Structure formats: structure tokens, C-alpha cells
């Protein structure tokens, strides 16, 4: 596989960010899942969000997608403070999310899932299945040209095909901000490559992408900047070109910036790695 390293098409990280999340706090009972987190995302930029299990990545993105309310903090979309209390609000501001669990209705087919909650209807008010299928064909053609099972319930599709349906749903509605939670976790190598190409394509179109992944190489390959979370807090947000994957790994595991890591901790890390 000839995976060329992403050309440094460094997007402008100045001016007004697409999204700014400021001092976000979420607590579940006594567990402070997200603590005072501030991150931002610029148009055409991919920001990788990494961290161990339970670091607060998913909770943070759920706040942005409206699936989880923050206890405190501000969300600014293109410079303006917005109130996001449910998934509908988020979609209104152009925020689409691909959830790790894919969140598909298994017994419905791909077009029905793509348009779930936003069904197209004819002038008489009944469902316009033809138009929905055409639109689905168009957008799926871009993501997965070999896909042709448009009338099959998605439960019988492969993992990659389901993933494509989930992505198609996010892409179709002209998202400005795309949250991808573990987009390649369930995919084979060919499908993973497809998703990577798609991320680059969307990035080139000026969409801001928040990419959550356990796969450090995935993130390093696709992201412009990487935010590392540890126990609900941001350790640091770094420009990819200024750090190595080992530095990031160190931040994920130890929760410290590279400069703060002691020699002893480094040795322990080596032993573990």
C-alpha cells in the first residue's frame, strides 16, 4: 500500500475558528468526565482528539453534537456563542457526528437511515422514496462506489458498508463541522484507506473535522493538530509537525507534556512500549 504522507497543506489557524469550546465541564455524579476543556477547530482543519479509555473524548464530542449537556462552558460557532441542548440544535449549526456505535436503525434500508428524521416527502405529504434513494446513490457513489444494496435493511450490510451509510448521512447534509468517533475501528484495510481518502477530500472542501481515534497512526496521518486528553483534561494541543508519535503516546499514557516527563517515567514507558 502506497500511503503517501499528507502534504502539509497547513490550513490557516488564525482568524475566526469554526468551533471554539471554552472551559467545558461535564460531571456524572462525582466523576468529573470533562474538566475545564478548551479546544478549537478551523475550517479545512483536522484536529485529532486522543486519549486513553475514559479520558473524556467521547463525552466532549457529545457536548458538541448535542447528545450530552455540559454543566458549564461556552460553545462558539464561527465566533458566535450558541446554545446546543439537543442533536437538532447541533445539526442546525452544521455539526454532524458519526458515532462509534454508528447509530443506525437496523431494520431500515440505507436511504431511510440517511434521511432519518429528515425524510423527503412529495407535495402530497407521503414519503418520496425515489428521491431519497437517488440522493443516497449519489452520495454513496462518492464514498463507496461498489455499494448497491439500497433496499436492504442495514443490519445485513458489512461493517464497512454500515460505516459508509453513517458517513453518508453526515456528509449529505452539508456539514461544516464533522465529528468522527473512531471512524475506522471496525474496518478492514481497504475500507480504512477509503475513509482516510474521504477525510482528506472533506478537509479539502473546507470542512472542519474532529477526529477521535485510538489509532495513533491514523491520527498522526490525518490530523493537522492533535489534542491529548487525560483524565478529563487537555494535556496539550500540539501541531503535528512539532512532535513525534512517541511524544503523543507519552502524553496519552502519562498525562504530561514531553518536556515534563522525567527520565524514570520515560524508562517505564519504554518498558511498557
Amino acid at each position, binding site marked *: 500500500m502506497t500511503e503517501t504522507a499528507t502534504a502539509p497543506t497547513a490550513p490557516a489557524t488564525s482568524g475566526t475558528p469554526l468551533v471554539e469550546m471554552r472551559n467545558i465541564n461535564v460531571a456524572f455524579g462525582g466523576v468529573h468526565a470533562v474538566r475545564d476543556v478548551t479546544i478549537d477547530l478551523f475550517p479545512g482543519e483536522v484536529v485529532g482528539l486522543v486519549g486513553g479509555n475514559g479520558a473524556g473524548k467521547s463525552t466532549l464530542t457529545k457536548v458538541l*453534537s448535542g*447528545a450530552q449537556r455540559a454543566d458549564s462552558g461556552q460553545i462558539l460557532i464561527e465566533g458566535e456563542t450558541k446554545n446546543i441542548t*439537543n*442533536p*437538532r440544535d447541533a*445539526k442546525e449549526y452544521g455539526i454532524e*457526528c458519526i*458515532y462509534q*456505535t*454508528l*447509530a*443506525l*436503525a*437496523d*431494520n*431500515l434500508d440505507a436511504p*431511510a*437511515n440517511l434521511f*432519518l*428524521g*429528515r*425524510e423527503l*416527502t412529495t407535495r402530497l*405529504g*407521503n*414519503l418520496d422514496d425515489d428521491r431519497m434513494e437517488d440522493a443516497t446513490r449519489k452520495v454513496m457513489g462518492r464514498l463507496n462506489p461498489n455499494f448497491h444494496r439500497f433496499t436492504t435493511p442495514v443490519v445485513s450490510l458489512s461493517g464497512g458498508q454500515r460505516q459508509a451509510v453513517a458517513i453518508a*448521512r453526515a456528509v449529505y447534509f452539508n456539514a461544516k463541522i464533522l465529528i468522527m468517533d473512531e471512524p475506522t475501528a471496525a474496518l478492514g484495510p481497504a475500507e480504512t484507506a477509503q475513509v482516510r481518502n474521504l477525510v482528506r477530500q472533506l478537509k479539502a472542501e473546507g470542512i472542519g473535522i474532529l477526529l477521535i481515534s485510538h489509532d495513533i497512526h491514523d491520527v498522526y496521518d490525518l490530523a493537522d493538530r492533535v489534542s491529548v486528553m487525560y483524565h478529563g483534561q487537555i494535556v496539550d494541543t500540539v501541531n503535528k509537525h512539532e512532535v513525534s508519535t512517541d511524544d503523543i503516546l507519552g502524553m496519552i499514557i502519562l498525562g504530561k507534556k514531553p518536556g515534563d516527563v522525567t527520565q524514570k517515567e520515560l524508562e517505564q514507558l519504554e518498558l511498557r512500549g
Partner: protein
Amino acid sequence: MTSVGTGTAERNPWLTRATWRRILRDQPLIPLSGLLIALVIVLQLVQPGIVTASWAGVIVRQAVPLAILAGCQTLAMLTGGIDLSVGAVASMAAFVMATLVNGQGPVVAVLAGLGVALAAGVVTGVGIGVFKVHPLIMTLGMSLVVLGLVAVYQLAMVLSGVVIPDPILWLGSETSFGFLPNSLFLFVPLSAVIVLGLRRSGYGRLLFAVGDNAIAARLAGVRIWQVLIVLYTLSALLAAIAGFLIAGLNKTASPALVESAVLPSVAAAVIGGTSILGGRGGFAGTIVGALILTLLTTLLTTLNMPEAMRQVLFGAIIVVVAAAYTRVTGEA
């Protein structure tokens, strides 16, 4: 049939278990209609000459209210819920209607019957949609509340007699052309609306989506609470209509008129291929399910079973059919 090697049985798609499973799951109407016809044949064998056009009319007339009540269950079950308050709500609507005919006239009486059902449906829907009470608990609780309220109402209305207005009698118990039950004039358009509404409307699709994966529906921006309030309100209105038909059929109304139809309504929906777990099913199968249950009752009556034995068999057959269905389709 267990064939060894590469016999024709394996190649013949009609004999594979997967094929049968697929037919039962995706096209439940085919085997259900087969079962229906088989029951008719058995009845004809048990009592030769029983199957006539007017006999079919009687069966259909009994099955229509059951099918409407089973429609309530179908809608609720598609979202993964259930509506056990249909019996109480239907009885209440019919009783309120029947007690008001003398003083207020039939039009006001029918509207009042629909009105109290609407109110009960909205309360149920708010409880389930907004306060997230489980449908089983909410509708069971609601049926107790409704029964209690009707008992109080009955005491207050002790002087006004129970009168079923003529149009309701005509719809519920009379026939046209000697065999065609008049309830079909109401039922056929009503079922067309339900069947098409489920398949071809945005709201129908949302019912499937909510029952299939409520989390996905919520994340996709569906306002689930609204879907549920509308659902249980519709269900209560349908129950009221069934209550009117049953009052017309029995030519009387009482606070417990429809109570015994609750279990059969759930059974008809299950036998008709609607999954109690949500996301799969439809009203066409439910109609056939209601016909099958009605035929079964007739068969047990024809066999001169004592009432108690009939109930035992009826309950057992419902359980066995539901179990067989689950086993064959691999789903509940």
C-alpha cells in the same frame, strides 16, 4: 427433512429452513393466510355446511373491532411499546357515549366519547414520552385510573339510561346485501389509512425507527417524545372507535365492555407478525391475525367446549403460536 449429501432437497430453495424463515419474517401474510384457510377448512370438516357467505359476515363483524384494537397494539409495538389501556379506554368511550345519548343527542354523545378517549391518550402519551414511564406500567396504570373514573361517572349518571344510537347500531351489528357487515364501511378506509400511513408517511417511518433504535433516532434529531404522544393519542382514538363498534354489536355499553379483548388484541398483533420488541411488523398482518383468533374462538365454540376449557385452550394456543413464530423467525 434432513437430506445427506448433495441431494435435490438442498438445492431446492423451497425446502431450506432459511427460506421459510425469510418468508415468515418478511412476508408473514403468506403463511398467515394459509393458516386462515386451514382453519376455515377444519371448521367446514367439523361442522359441514357451516361456511357460507352470511357466516363469513358474522366472523368479519366480530373480527373488525378486535382488528382495530390490535391496530392500537401494532402501532405501539412498532415503537417497542404496548397499550394495555385499550380495553378500559374503549369501554369508557362507549359508556360515556351511551349515557349521553338521552340528554345530549347522538352527535354530542359520540364526540364526548372520542373526547374522553383523546384526553386519556394524551395523558398516556405524556407519561411515556415526556416522563419516560415504561409503556407497560403507564398503560396498566392508566387502565386502572380510567376504570375508576368510569365507576365514579357511573354513580353520577345512575339515572340516565344506556342508549346506543341508531347509526352505531347500524355500523356495529347490521349487514348490507345480506352478508356484508356495515362495520367494513368504516374499517376498510380506516385500515387503508393505517397501512399506507405506516408504509408511506414520514410519521410511520419514525414509528419504525423509534422501535428499531431509539438512540439512533434521537441522535438523528427525531423528537421521540412527540412521536410517542401522537402514537398513544391515536391509539386511544382507535380504541374509542372499536369501543363504539363493540357497543353497537352488543347493543349495550358497560364500564367493562371491552376489558376481555386486551389479551386477544396483543395476540392478534403478535400472530400477525409484529415484533413486540419494535421496529418490525405492519397492520395487514394484524388484520389476518384478528381473523385467525376470531375463527379459533368460533371453532372452540363449535366443538361445544365448556367456557372454562375454551379459555384454557384459547390462552394455550396464543402462547404456542407466538412461541412457534419466535422459533421459526428467530426473533421475538
